[in-house]
C-alpha cells in the first residue's frame, strides 16, 4: 500500500510517499509510522484512505492509498 505525506508530515518523514506491506488497519499503520518517525505522533493530521477522509479505524488492503494530511483551517 502507498502512504502519502503532506505538509509538515512530509518535512518530518522527508518523504512524500512510501510503500508499505502487511499492514491490516489504520491503527497498525499509525503505530508503525510512530515507531519509524516518532515526531509524527505530536502532530495533528487527517487521514484519507483512497481519497476519502476517514475517521476512526479502518481496515486496509494492499492496493490502498493512504494520505496523511495537515489540519484543515478555515473554509
Amino acid at each position: 500500500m502507498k502512504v502519502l505525506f503532506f505538509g509538515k508530515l512530509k518535512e518530518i518523514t522527508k518523504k512524500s510517499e512510501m510503500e508499505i506491506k502487511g499492514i491490516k488497519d489504520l491503527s497498525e499503520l499509525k503505530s508503525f509510522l510512530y515507531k519509524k518517525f516518532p515526531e509524527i505522533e505530536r502532530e495533528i493530521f487527517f487521514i484519507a484512505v483512497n481519497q476519502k477522509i476517514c475517521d476512526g479505524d479502518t481496515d486496509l488492503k494492499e492496493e490502498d492509498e493512504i494520505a496523511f494530511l495537515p489540519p484543515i483551517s478555515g473554509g
Partner: protein
Amino acid sequence: MVLKDSFGREIDYIRISLTDRCNLRCFYCMPEEGVKLFKREEILSLEEIEFLINFFYKYFSIKKIRFTGGEPLLRRGFENLVIEIKKNIPEIDINITTNGILIKEKVNFLKEYGIKVNLSLDTLNREKFKKITGFDFLDEIIEGIDLCIKLKVPLKINTVMLKGINDEEIFDLIEFSREKELIVRFIEYMPLSGNDNWKKFFISKKEIMEKIKEKYNIFYQEKEKIAENYILYDDKKFVTKVGFISTITEPFCDFCSRLRITSDGKIVLCLFDKTGYDLKEFLRPRIREKKLFDFILKTVKLKPEGFVALKKTFFDKGENVESFFVMRKIGG
C-alpha cells in the same frame, strides 16, 4: 405530523420564491429579450407567505425555509416578513439564495436575524459577469461578500458551471475560496425552460474534478444533503474546501426533502415536473385551512421520483428535452 410523499421521503424544507423579478438577466434564467412577469395581484402577499410558513410549521413541524426568487432581496417588505416569522417561530431556520447585489444594504439585518446566505456567483471576471448577467455589478457583489465575512454571516457561494464560459476559472474560483475562506459549490448546469443549449454548456462534476486534480490533491470529506464536499491540498497544506452539487450525473432525488412554492403561489413538487398546484385557491378570498391541509397532503403524494427516474430517457434519447420548469419563478 410528518409530511411524506409516496416514496417515503419526508418534507422538512420549504423553498419560497418571493418574486419573479430580478436585477440581473442571466442568459440561462432570465434572458434580455424579455420575460413575462407576474402581475402584482398574482403574487402571494407578504401576509399570505407568512401564513403559509406558520401553517407548515404548525401542522408539519417544518422549520427550515429558503427564500428564493428571482432575486428575493428585491421583495419590498422582506425585512418585515422575516421579523414577523421570527416572532412566531423563534427557532425557524431562515436561508436565502441571492445574487448578492443588495447584500451590502441588508447585511446588518441578515446578521441580526441569523439568516444564512447562499450567493449565486458564476464568475469573478468583470467582463464575463457582464456577458452572463447583462449588468456590471461584480464590485457590489464582492463588497457584499466581504461584509458578510466581516460580520460572520454564514455564506456559501453557488457557481453554475458553464463549459466555455467559466470552466476556465476553476482555479480562480478555488483561489477565491481559499482567500476568503468560503466554500464554493460547483453546480451542474440543468436544462431550463426556453433554452436548448444545455449540451453546449454542460460540464460534469467528473470533468471539473479532473481539472482540479491537475493542480491539487482532492479528498472526499462529507455529504451535506445535496452537496458533496471535498478538501483540497497542495503539496504543503490545506488549500480550501469545495462542494459539488451534481444534479445531473449524481442525482440526489432519494434524499429530496423539499417543497417549492412559486411567487404566484403554486406548489412545484420537483424541478423536473412542470405542474404547479395552486394554493391561492385556498387563501383567497379567505383562508380555508382545513381544505388547504387536505390539498397539501394530497398534492405531496403526487411528488414524482425525480430526475433520477428521467435520467435514462434524458440521456439515452439525447433529444432536446422539453423545458421542465421556469427557474426565475421558482428560484432553483
